[in-house]
């Protein structure tokens, strides 16, 4: 029943957030906005959507007086700047005001927090990058909160499922949906790639990473649109974990194949060693980029197509844009699962190559 409640909550949030779509036409309520500005505004909106933020915004619009109204709730900002500074992100007023904490001034500028003087002035270098000091930022941003929520959801869902098995050897409820997926990961991803003997050690990681990426991608497609996996930091953390596990479970054969490839003449060995070594870094790097880029590209295209609606502003544009966005959303549903699958699959492949025992040539 726990899962049911969660599902209910999610669908409620969905309905709530669908309001953001209906609230969006407010964009073109501005008086005769020049076309160029509208495009710029859509671009800014997409950029804003792709970025992490310090408050959990559900939707925003511009009222008749041209004032931006944000609906949502603030999240705690946690900074380390010669001591722990914790305050609510409401202090920034969406970047419009400075936050003053213990005599220090912080400014939210292009989605980042900078330390400033009391006037909030930002110094720039030659490339128009701010040179102000950046405090170490461990804020509970929108993405962090969302990761936390997904982690809780997964924990409750799967521990509930595990408890069900104690009563009944057959899966019940949501377990009936999840068990085939778990078995698929075990039988078609882990065992063929890692091998019958050693796959058990990696199952926890593979299962967690698959469901984490999948669920978080799917939830990113909801109108809430908190797309966590389009942050390079998140995908870097995931890919780094795969890299660390691969490196630490690499056996003698694995390192031998990197540094002194058997079966090739010695000049080739010297040439191959740096390439192979580089390969070990490229593998997790491509994992990171792939997940990040797929999700980002999907969101950008989807948002752009929705944005077309406000550029066309006629009877043909809206259905067209709706139809395209709908089709693309379906594709994105597939991509959400596919990226999770590929991430898991390639991780398993790398683990497999690390623990594989070659018969000696």
């Amino acid at each position, binding site marked *: 029943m726990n899962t049911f409640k969660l599902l209910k909550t999610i669908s409620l949030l969905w309905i709530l957030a669908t309001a953001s779509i209906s609230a969006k036409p407010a964009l073109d309520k501005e008086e005769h906005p020049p076309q160029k500005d509208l495009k710029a505004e859509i671009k800014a909106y997409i950029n804003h959507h792709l970025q992490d933020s310090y408050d959990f915004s559900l939707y925003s619009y511009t009222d008749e007086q041209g004032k931006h109204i944000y609906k949502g709730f603030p999240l705690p900002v946690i900074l380390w700047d010669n001591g722990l500074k914790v305050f609510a992100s409401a202090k920034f007023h969406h970047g419009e005001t400075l936050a003053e904490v213990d005599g220090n001034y912080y400014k939210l500028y292009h989605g980042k927090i900078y330390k400033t003087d009391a006037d909030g002035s930002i110094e720039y270098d030659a490339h128009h990058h701010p040179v102000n000091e950046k405090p170490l930022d461990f804020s509970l941003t929108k993405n962090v909160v969302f990761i936390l929520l997904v982690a809780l959801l997964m924990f409750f869902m799967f521990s509930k499922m595990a408890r069900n098995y104690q009563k009944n050897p057959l899966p019940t409820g949501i377990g009936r949906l999840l068990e085939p997926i778990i078995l698929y990961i075990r039988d*078609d991803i882990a065992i*063929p790639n890692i091998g019958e003997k050693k796959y058990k050690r990696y199952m926890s990681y593979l299962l967690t990473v698959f469901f984490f990426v999948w669920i978080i991608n799917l939830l990113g497609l909801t109108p809430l649109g908190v797309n966590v996996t389009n942050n390079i930091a998140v995908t870097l953390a995931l890919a780094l974990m795969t890299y660390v596990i691969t490196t630490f479970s690499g056996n003698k054969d694995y390192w031998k194949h990197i540094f002194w490839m058997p079966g090739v003449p010695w000049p080739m060995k010297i040439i191959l060693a740096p390439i192979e070594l580089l390969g070990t870094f490229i593998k997790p*790097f*491509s*994992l990171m*980029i*792939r997940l990040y*880029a*797929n999700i980002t590209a999907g969101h950008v295209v989807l948002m752009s197509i929705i944005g077309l609606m406000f550029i066309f502003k006629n009877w043909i544009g809206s259905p067209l844009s709706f139809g395209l966005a709908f089709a693309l959303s379906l594709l994105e549903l597939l991509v959400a699962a*596919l990226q999770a*699958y*590929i991430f898991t*699959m*390639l991780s398993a*492949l790398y683990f497999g190559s690390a623990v594989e025992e070659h018969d000696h040539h």
Partner: protein
Amino acid sequence: MTIPNIVGAGLIVIGAGLGIGKIGGSAMDAIARQPEASGKIQTAMLIAAALIEGIGFAALFAA
């Protein structure tokens, strides 16, 4: 974005598209020839496509 960047991005997309298309086509052929091995072929196809895609994305970001 400068013009060389855009041209480079276009080239990358053409290359990656051709590569993935070839993989997909070959996989279809293979499945048609051996429908009982379709599971294995699909897995191999996805891995190969993912590798090309990874390189493509890396190049796109460099462009």
